């Protein structure tokens, strides 16, 4: 890249390397300096401070642009890449004139994008990968965990592509993407719930060692009665109970965890519950 005299009216062109270094900075910082007030605002500033300096050689404009990005911003970091790609293109093209447009694009999209992104990245992916990898891990098998890291590497590449997509197609794409993604979210929820059904049966382990004596015949409660009614009957019952409890405001996840700990200890003490094998 040759050093040329910057003509202030001429829009500054960023190289692909500079753009990628900015988004990589953002991806590295992410929510590592998250605060309750402006949330990811400082992270965006930290990441884009160098490319913005190039776009705004004048100190006053630079500070104004930084202040603009210091404002509240929060969305799924993966989805933020699209938004930040689009806003960078806007700032590169129009400079400080784009300030208000940049801010309104960020604030109007971060909510809907977070809804889609959080569902896909922080709920569905961990549900599907987590249940498969977690279930394998229960048997001591690390294959699922390794596969997950590979998925993360693919995702890393995809995030860079999302940034490029936002940069290249700007505002146009960003507004039309919403519909497709919400259908996608709904469809992947179905996949997630199917897996949840399987996990209730396989990953939750509750069983009783109780036995009944009927005359001279010994009848094991678990294999003789419960399993005859329905396999995984107790796990299904516990799952339903926990689902209902979590639906009430009084029962936080932590309380439910404590309740299950107490039930397990009582069950072990009285011999009603046994260690699953």
């Amino acid at each position: 890249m040759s050093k040329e005299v910057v003509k202030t009216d001429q829009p500054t062109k960023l190289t692909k390397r500079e753009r990628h270094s900015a988004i990589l900075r953002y991806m590295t910082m992410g929510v590592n300096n998250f605060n309750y007030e402006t949330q990811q605002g400082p992270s965006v500033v930290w990441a884009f401070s160098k490319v913005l300096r190039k776009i705004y050689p004048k100190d006053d404009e630079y500070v104004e642009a930084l202040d603009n990005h210091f404002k509240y911003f929060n969305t799924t970091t993966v989805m933020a890449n699209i938004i930040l790609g689009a806003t960078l293109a806007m700032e590169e093209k129009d400079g400080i004139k784009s300030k208000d447009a940049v801010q309104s694009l960020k604030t109007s999209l971060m909510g809907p994008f977070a809804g889609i992104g959080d569902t896909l990245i922080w709920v569905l992916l961990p549900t599907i990968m987590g249940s498969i990898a977690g279930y394998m891990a229960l048997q001591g098998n690390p294959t699922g965990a390794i596969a997950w890291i590979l998925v993360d590497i693919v995702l890393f590449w995809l995030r860079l592509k999302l940034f490029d997509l936002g940069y290249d197609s700007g505002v146009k794409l960003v507004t039309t993407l919403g519909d497709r993604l919400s259908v996608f979210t709904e469809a992947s929820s179905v996949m997630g719930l199917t897996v949840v059904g399987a996990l209730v049966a396989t990953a939750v382990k509750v069983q009783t060692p109780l036995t009944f004596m009927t005359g001279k015949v010994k009848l094991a409660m678990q294999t003789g009665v419960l399993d005859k009614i329905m396999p995984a009957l107790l796990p299904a019952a516990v799952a339903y109970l926990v689902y209902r409890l979590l639906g009430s405001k009084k029962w936080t996840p932590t309380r439910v965890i404590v309740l299950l700990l107490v039930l397990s200890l009582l069950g072990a003490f009285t011999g009603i519950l046994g260690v699953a094998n």
Partner: protein
Amino acid sequence: MPDIVQNILILILASYATLDNQGITIINYWPVTVGLIAGLIMGDMHTAMVIAGTFQLMSLGVAGLGGASVPDYGLATIVGSFLAIRTGSGIATAVAVGLPVGLLAIQFDVIIKLANNFIAHKAQAYAHQKEFDKMRMINWLGPFFFALKNFIPMIVVVTVGPTAVKAILSIIPQWIMNGLTIAGGMLPVVGLGMLMHYMPTKKYVSYIIVGFVFAAYLKVPVFGVALLGLAAAIVIFQQGMKTANAKKAQVDAMTVTNDQPQGDDYDE
């Protein structure tokens, strides 16, 4: 691997994993992925994975969305694997020590995010003073605090943990150990329950039943059931797109008269 090297590596893992999770997300902070690294460090993959799997299933559906603070299952896994492998005890120790540490660690999370408020203000003040390097530098404090959040409990566990746990294990009655092991088997249900609240369970409850039947009665492995779910998801996606496109075509037909090319002129 000598104990001291293991101790140092496990401390690095604990401090780094949370930063990875909140930033680059390659290893991330999932119990199975940090458990994988912990297993490599501690030299007992089987125990580490069993503990990680238990915490992984517990953590399903417990996502820290919108900056919410959630139980720290990643740290629970690292603490649990370290102690269980070092003391030669099993999953009961991991549940007994790892889980409380993970639940306590959330409190620090809140404090750091409050402290970051001040850092953000300071950074902006530096920007106004045109001290742009300082503005950037001060932002390293956030990641530093987050690393410290895991480093502090971990160094306590590494230094006094094994001896303390061994001492406690020798006096603890068997039924308590059994109870904790039972809890380890039962606790994944919490994550599943939370997940069901996050997803459109009432609308698609039939798919939960399908998944359950295939796993419980037909013994299809989880991956097979996931493929089944994928098949259903593809059908629903295709139908959803058809409906969305039909709706869009309708709207386009209605607005064809005042259709202005929009989208490119965002600067006005």
